[in-house]
């Protein structure tokens, strides 16, 4: 379950001025003591585990320092898993990004009850995942599903006539859209709400056409927010485990599933620490994506 809406709302936080940066020499400050519980908690339950993975991932089973475990990530099954995860995250980012932006475009124009319903629905749907979501889609789009039957009998379209299968890549992509699109709606709404009618009117009075407004104003204004929102979608799809696990039965190579398998004891002898390297690989990918996101967000906030 990903509860994303609070986190991603780009409310610039106040404060942060006059931090310890301004003090030239480090001097112990007693008010740090009040933060000790938090430091200890995060140190033990977040940083220590991550440090342990890092340490494990650079040692082979004879306890020698090595980077070969990371080298392995670029070959064989491991590479396939990363490629698969990248592909799924990328496609899901494109489809959900565009669909979500379009829906968002229409939703921000609504008012009153409709707006309340759509925005709370988005919050709820974006946090749906795992086995319940998977089974809901089996009931809807599976061989015996209601929508499959509806499409066949009413629209004479056999969903399963082509290469579609709920359990293959495209099926998982469809299921991911169910929580990724609402996530996009949540993240992208503030950007659209910041658009001003005055820009449309100024463009008109200055002699610009609708097309020129799109090309010179709307798209350049929205692009950074759109891209940063897409990066969050990528990160969310890349690290999603529960839904993938419920849908694929291991038929599609994905990093989180691969790691899951390793944790469950399906380890090839002599590569006990390979899972740690993979987990770190995920952290590194995630770090890169979030860093890019923060960078883009700074561009938008400067405006």
């Amino acid at each position: 379950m990903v509860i994303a809406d609070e986190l991603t709302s780009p409310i610039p936080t106040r404060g942060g001025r006059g931090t310890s940066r301004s003090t030239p020499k480090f001097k112990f400050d007693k008010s740090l003591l009040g933060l000790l519980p938090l430091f200890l908690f995060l140190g033990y339950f977040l940083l220590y585990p991550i440090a342990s993975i890092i340490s494990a991932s650079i040692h082979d089973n004879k306890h020698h320092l090595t980077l070969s475990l990371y080298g392995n990530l670029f070959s064989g099954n491991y590479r396939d898993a990363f490629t698969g995860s990248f592909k799924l995250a990328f496609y899901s980012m494109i489809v959900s990004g565009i669909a979500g932006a379009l829906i968002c475009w229409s939703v921000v124009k609504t008012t009153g009850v409709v707006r309340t319903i759509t925005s709370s629905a988005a919050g709820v749907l974006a946090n749906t995942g795992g086995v319940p979501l998977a089974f809901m889609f089996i009931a809807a789009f599976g061989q015996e599903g209601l929508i499959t039957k509806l499409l066949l009998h009413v629209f004479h379209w056999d969903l399963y006539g082509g290469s579609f299968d709920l359990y293959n890549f495209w099926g998982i992509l469809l299921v991911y859209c169910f929580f990724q699109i609402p996530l996009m709606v949540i993240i992208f709404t503030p950007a659209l709400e910041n658009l001003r009618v005055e820009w449309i009117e100024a463009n008109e009075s200055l002699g610009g056409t609708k097309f020129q407004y799109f090309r010179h104003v709307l798209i350049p204004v929205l692009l950074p927010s759109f891209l940063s929102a897409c990066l969050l979608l990528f990160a969310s799809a890349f690290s999603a485990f529960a839904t993938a696990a419920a849908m694929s039965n291991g038929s599609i190579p994905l990093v989180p599933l691969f790691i899951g398998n390793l944790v469950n004891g399906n380890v090839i002898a002599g590569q006990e620490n390979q899972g740690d390297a993979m987990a770190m690989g995920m952290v590194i990918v995630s770090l890169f994506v979030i860093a890019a996101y923060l960078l883009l967000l700074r561009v938008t906030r400067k405006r």
Partner: protein
Amino acid sequence: MDLHGSTVEFRNVKRTFGTVKALDDFSLTIKPGELVTLLGPSGCGKTTALRILAGIDKEHEGIVEIDGKDMSQVPANKRNIGMVFQAYSLFPNMTAIENVAYGLRVRGVDSHKRESRARELLDLVGLSTQADRRPTQLSGGQQQRVALARALAIEPSVLLLDEPLSALDAQVRAQLREEIRRIQSTIGISTLFVTHDQEEAMAISDRVGVMNKGVLEQIDEPGKLYNKPRTPFVAGFVGLTNYIPAVTESKSLVLVLSQSLEISDHSPAVKKGDEVRALIRPEEFEVQKADEGATVITKSFLGPVTRLGIDVGTPDLIYAEITSKEAKKIDTGDFVRLSISSDAVMIEHV
């Protein structure tokens, strides 16, 4: 700068929103090079008139002409009108100079020409050093200067200013309004200015039109508007006015504060013995220290004049303004005698 002034004409323009009449039989002519201000409380229809002229609001009856040409079939982006909005109208993805050059860019003017033209205009509004800043890096006053330069860059036939100063601090507001007037009269562009701030309207306009509930009540030079208001609404809205309970003595005389005065021309018709309210401006009083009578309750120093709040037994205090020199003699708690110095007063029914 070689902008010529155009003539703008509204003839019997009507606009309704549902059942609300935003503009009712609105007629107005702006002469070449003239700055006309529409003044009124919010919802009086002044902005609607401006938006109809800009072509943004198209659903109206009546005729709008620029230089004798009917505008009804001309879309907003072909009207060649420069518009400055309240705030936030600059495109955030462009620098100041790019904003100014935008109108020329969409007209296909080559980049070299439009840059030199944009620089010229930024210079005119005194922002040549800020050309490469983005809107968020500019202060509110600077943003509005850029917006003005942007509106003028397309050499419009008419300039529209929709409360361009309302989002600014008092000091910046006063400074910028003088500058708008300076630039406007240098270029000689016909201008329609919309505001709810009467001081602003009086300060910079050739003529001010006071609007109330979709109706243009009076349009006149600032001085006339103040001294010769033609309706009680105008008298009340322009300048500070006391509403004093009074009784008519005949069709043409009214008794105010036990002083018999002539009723002004634009007052509604009355007969003897009607209970009315007389509208009297603070500077129309003479205040003399006395041993008994009305009491001075408040005293506020306003620079050259001082405003006294005086209790004469009516429900509201009466405000009188006298020179600060005279006011030195009078303190709060003192008894004073009030007399009205004007020859004719406006009255309205209670």
